[in-house]
């Protein structure tokens, strides 16, 4: 890493606020991503393949459920350490981070928080090692920002429950051995279920038409009279608040992850402007380019500050979900804007996947939308401060 890259990485000296373990964990994931992901990211993205061969290595590295206690396969790291891991994965590609986010923040967290002791012991250690991949079925074809309008049902019947319905935009859908599915019970209350994906009546279809998140597997799930045993239900889950609390975890990861994508764009753009000669001088020596680079840096520093403070609140047990919403909203949008500016600075080269900004930019369009759109988070924060529900 050049001096300039290092300066851009930590312009505000935030490393001073991190513990030695947090730095070591970040560097470990960074090195892994530098060696195993970055050289191939453009190609994998272009070909639309997820690097499944990395799953066991990621498990061994400890990126799945790292904040969970050791007895469930976690390492008990701080929220900031978890966030920094997400940052480094997303520096590689948002699809890679999404894979880890869904496994850790959504599927594992749902089982950890709402599952029985038996469910936790049965699934979490194998999910931490990457042997069992999970997905999280909340969004439906006709229920995105309004998940309470879901149509999937789990009626009493058979040996326990009968699941019917469909989910859409499900990350890891076709990679998963288990799906955490949210459905309405006989009383219309939203409950969570752990559904092995080889249960008869369950099917997943991969969505191949994405021009974004091409290195991530995204699927539709169909449940056609899927018969589940009694113990498939997550006993502590009840109501929409349950899946939403899982989303808070994943959104926390996004607040950090997007910093990684933004830094990658900023660093490549800065490097490029130093070496690209136009009108007899590096374009970095022009006022317009400098303004652009400084604007990007300014966004990145804002994002870093927000993420770090959110992490400290998380650790202190003092994090409120509207705070997560503000960070998710601003950091996803901030990274998207940084990526767009980087794309412009690279001129024609900027549209090629030989460079990083276009790939990040296309991915970040998804990140800006999923896990609560920019607008949804605006309304969550608005409701929090004004005490008026504008949904």
């Amino acid at each position: 890493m050049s001096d300039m890259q290092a300066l851009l990485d930590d312009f505000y000296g935030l490393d001073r606020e991190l513990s030695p373990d947090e730095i070591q964990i970040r560097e470990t994931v960074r090195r892994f991503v530098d060696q195993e992901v970055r050289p191939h990211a453009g190609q994998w993205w272009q070909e639309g393949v997820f690097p499944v061969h990395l799953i066991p290595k990621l498990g061994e590295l400890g990126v799945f459920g790292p904040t969970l206690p050791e007895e469930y396969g976690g390492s008990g790291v701080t929220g900031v350490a978890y966030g920094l891991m997400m940052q480094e994965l997303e520096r590689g590609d948002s699809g890679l981070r999404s894979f880890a986010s869904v496994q850790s923040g959504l599927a594992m967290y749902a089982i950890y928080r709402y599952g029985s002791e038996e469910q936790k012991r049965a699934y979490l250690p194998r999910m931490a090692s990457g042997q069992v991949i999970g997905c999280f079925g909340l969004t439906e074809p006709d229920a995105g920002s309004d998940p309470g309008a879901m149509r999937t049902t789990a009626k009493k019947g058979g040996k326990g429950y009968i699941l019917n319905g469909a989910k859409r935009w499900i990350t890891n859908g076709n990679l998963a051995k288990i799906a955490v599915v949210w459905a309405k019970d006989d009383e219309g209350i939203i409950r969570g279920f752990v559904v092995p994906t080889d249960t008869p009546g369950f099917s997943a279809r991969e969505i191949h038409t994405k021009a974004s998140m091409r290195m991530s597997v995204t699927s539709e799930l169909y449940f056609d009279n899927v018969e589940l045993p009694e113990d498939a239900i997550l006993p502590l889950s009840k109501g929409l608040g349950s899946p939403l609390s899982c989303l808070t975890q994943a959104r926390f990861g996004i607040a950090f992850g997007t910093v990684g994508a933004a830094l990658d764009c900023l660093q490549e753009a800065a490097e490029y402007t130093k070496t690209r000669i136009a009108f007899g001088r590096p374009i970095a020596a022009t006022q317009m380019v400098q303004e652009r680079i400084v604007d990007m840096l300014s966004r990145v520093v804002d994002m870093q500050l927000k993420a770090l403070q959110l992490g400290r609140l998380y650790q202190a047990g003092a994090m409120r979900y509207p705070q997560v919403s503000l960070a998710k909203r601003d950091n996803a949008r901030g990274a998207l804007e940084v990526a767009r500016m980087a794309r412009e600075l690279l001129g024609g080269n900027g549209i090629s996947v030989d460079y990083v900004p276009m790939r990040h930019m296309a991915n970040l369009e998804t990140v800006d939308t999923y896990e609560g759109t920019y607008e949804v988070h605006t309304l969550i924060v608005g409701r929090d401060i004004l005490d008026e529900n504008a949904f």
Partner: protein
Amino acid sequence: MKILVLVKQVPDTATKIRLNPGDTAIQTDGIKWVINPYDEFAIEECLRLKEKAGGEVVVLSLGPSRVEEAIRQALAMGADRAIHVMTDAVIDSQVAARALAKVAQEEGYDLIVTGKQAVDDDQAQVGALVAVELGLPQVTVVIELNVDVESRRIRAERELEGASEIVELPMPAVITAQRGLNEPRYPTLPNIMKAKKKEVKSVPLDSLGVDTTPWVRVEELTLPPERPAAKILTGEPEEAAKELARLLHEEAKVI
């Protein structure tokens, strides 16, 4: 088997080196420090030996307090415990070897492994000098290592210019690792957390009772001259090629 691995903390190879006029050491502010890459091969090899034959891998490092970062990294890779010989003084290879040998002697090891050289000063002396200090056989620049625990014999392949050499020697011995010996592992997250609880014994250099008078004094340190700006030839290929040939002949004098 009790294995000692000698680890040096060095500036990251991508770090920009700064010098003030008259300095005899580089400016250390703002430097990113890492484990000497050749020592990483040494650590990895020790861990593999331990995984096969059992025993213990002990990290030994020398330097100021910042060196603990490198030690923690080695522990996170899987080493069992560490000894940190503390000093802020500028020392040469001879003093370093004496101090490391003293610690090694006190504990007694079946094998001492380190990188073939450190990438900061490129002296490539400490491994060999430690062997001399301890009166042990040594094999340097090793690219393949086989240890027979039963017979206590080592068979090592070492890299030579355009050839390789296979040597056999008895344990205990000193081995220095070359790139190609193995692919060092990543410190995993669970191991990083475990490493926090591992013992790092701090030993002041002065307490070892070794002569710390350096044999070598750095008189002067200068950065390499800046590379002159590249010349770009423009115009038709035929003319550019002619001009290139002329420059190579007349200016660069290489053809």
